C-alpha cells in the first residue's frame, strides 16, 4: 500500500522518459531560462575612524616600522615599492649589471611588463610604457615606472665620469707628481665582489681590442 502511495507521488519511468524526450542535450548557456536568482550587491562606503587620524599624527617611529613591514624595499637604494613584482623589476633594471649588459647587447627584449600576469617583454622602457598605456590603460605618468629615471641616471654619471676623467688627466699630471702612488687599504678581502666595472670607462679601448682581435683571427683564417 505504502509503496503504491509513494509511486503515485513520484513520476513513473514512462513519465520521466516522456519529459526527457523534450529536454535538449548539451550545455546550459548563461542566458537559458529560467534564470536562477542572482547575487545582490549594495554599494557601500567606509566610515573612517577619527582614531586612525589621531594615530597618523603620532610620532613617526611606529609608522616607519610599519612601512618596512608592509612594503617591499630595495636593500641597495632603500627605494620602497608596493609589490614584490615591482621590486623585482627595480632590482633587475637598476642594480643588475648582467641585465644592463644584456640590454646593451640588445639581442632580446628584457623589460617585463609592470603587470605580473602579463608575460610580454620589451626592448626598451619606452616600448613597455607604450604597451602599458595602450593595452592595460595605465596612466602616462605611472608612478612606479622604473624606466623613466634610468636614462637620467645613466646619462649624468657618464657625463660626470668623462668630465672627472678629463679633470683627472689635467690635474692628475700635477697632483700625481706631488703625491706618492698610494693604493687603497683593504685589510683582508677586497670589498668589490662584482665584475670589474672599470672596463666600461675604457669601452673605446676594449672595442678597439675586440676589433684588433677580430682582424687577427681573420688574418689567421686567411
Amino acid at each position, binding site marked *: 500500500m505504502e509503496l503504491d502511495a509513494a509511486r503515485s507521488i513520484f513520476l513513473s519511468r514512462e513519465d520521466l522518459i516522456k519529459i526527457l524526450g523534450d529536454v535538449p*542535450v*548539451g550545455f546550459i548557456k548563461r542566458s537559458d531560462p529560467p534564470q536562477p536568482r542572482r547575487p545582490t*550587491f549594495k*554599494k557601500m562606503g567606509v*566610515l*573612517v575612524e577619527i582614531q586612525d*587620524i589621531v594615530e597618523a599624527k603620532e610620532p613617526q617611529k611606529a*609608522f616607519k616600522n610599519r612601512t618596512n613591514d608592509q612594503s617591499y624595499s630595495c636593500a641597495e637604494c632603500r627605494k620602497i615599492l608596493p*609589490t614584490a613584482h615591482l621590486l623585482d623589476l627595480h632590482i633587475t633594471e637598476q642594480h643588475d649589471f648582467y641585465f644592463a649588459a644584456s640590454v646593451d647587447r640588445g639581442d632580446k627584449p628584457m623589460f617585463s611588463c609592470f603587470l605580473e600576469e602579463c608575460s610580454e617583454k620589451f626592448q626598451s622602457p619606452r616600448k613597455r610604457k607604450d604597451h602599458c598605456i595602450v593595452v*592595460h590603460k595605465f596612466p602616462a605618468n605611472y608612478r612606479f615606472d622604473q624606466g623613466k629615471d634610468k636614462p637620467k641616471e645613466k646619462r649624468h654619471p657618464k657625463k660626470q665620469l668623462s668630465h672627472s676623467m678629463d679633470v683627472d688627466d689635467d690635474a692628475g699630471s700635477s697632483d700625481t707628481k706631488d703625491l706618492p702612488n698610494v693604493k687603497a687599504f683593504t685589510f683582508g678581502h677586497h670589498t668589490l665582489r662584482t665584475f670589474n666595472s672599470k672596463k666600461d670607462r675604457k669601452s673605446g679601448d676594449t672595442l678597439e681590442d675586440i676589433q684588433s682581435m677580430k682582424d687577427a683571427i681573420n688574418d689567421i683564417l686567411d
Partner: protein
Amino acid sequence: MSSQPVPSAENAVLRDKIRGYAAEHRKEGRTQAKDSLRLGLGQIKDEFAAQDNLSEKDVHGLASRIKRRKHATSEDLFRLALAFLQGIENINAFAAIPGALQVLIKELTGSDIQKQIDSAECLCNLSLGEGHVAEKISSLAGSYMVTYLDGKEGRLKRSCLWTLANILATSEKAAQQLLQMQLVPKLWKLYAGEGASAGFQEDAGICLHLISTHAAHHVSGEDREYIAYHLFSMRPEDPGSEYLMYIIHQLEIVELHHGLETQQAECLVNFFVASLGSQAESLPVSYGVRVVANLMAFNNPALIGVLADDNIFVPALNKLFALRDPRLNMDLMRMLRNYLNLNLLDSNLVLDRLQVYA
C-alpha cells in the same frame, strides 16, 4: 606512577569542537566589526546625526585647499571621505573640480602608508558616485588599486577591493577599463588561488561576481583560461564560496575551447556535492547544477568525478528534486539528460530509482 589522567579520544574531539567554535565566533566578531564601518550613500545622516554636516561649499573649500598645497593631510582626507558619504551632490562637486582627484592619487601612491590607506578609503566613498565618477576613478587610479592588490598592507588592499566593487557595480565602461588592467587574474589569486587568504576571499568574490554580472562579455579568453587553470578546491564553508559556481557559470569557464582538466573539474564536482545540503535558492546549488550539467555535456565520465557513480548521483539528484523548486527542476532534467547521454549504465536502472515529485 603517574597520577595525570590520560586524555581520551572523546576529550580530544570535544576540545577540537570547542576550539573550532571559538575560532568561528572570533571570525564572526571580526567580520561584524569590519562591516559596522561600512555605510551606504546618505546612511550616515540617518544613523550618525552627531557627525559634521558637510556641504558642497565645504567640499569646494577642501578641494581648493588640497590643490593649492598639492597634498592632502590625513584630516583633509577624513573630512572629504565623510563628505562623500553624506550625499551624491558632494561627490559630483568634487569630481567636477579639475586636478582635485589627482591630489588624492598622489597621496595614494606616496610613501606614507597611512596616507595611502586614508586616500584609498576616501576614493572608496567617492566611488559611491555615478558612472562618470566611476570612470574617472578607474582611468586615473585603477592601475594603482589593481597594483595594491598584490601588496602586503591588508587594510589598503581591502579598501581597494571595496572601491573596485563599487566601480564594477556602477559603470560597464569603467569595468572594461579595469579588466584591461588584468584585474581578473589578480582577483582570482585572492579568491581561490594557492595563496588565497580568508581576509580577502569574500571581497574578491564579490568583485568577481560583479564582473560576471555586469561585464562578463568583456572578460578576455586569457582571463578565462587563467581561471580554468587555477581552479583549486574550495569548501562551502570558505568565505565567499557562495559566488564560486555563479562566477564559473556566468564566465562560461566550463565551456572553454580546451575544456577543463580532470583535476579542476573534480574540484567543482566536489564543491557541488559538499554544498548539496543548502537551500534550492542558494547560489551554489542553483548554479552548481548548471555547471555540473555542462561538465556532463562533454561526454567524458572522467570530468564528473564521484558523480559518475550512480550510488552517489541518484541520491544527490533525489535530494535536489525533493526541494520541489520548479525552476531548479528544469535544470535538473537537463543534468539528468546529459548524464544518461554518457551511457555509463542502463538508463532504466537510474530512472527507476529516481524520486521526482509529480
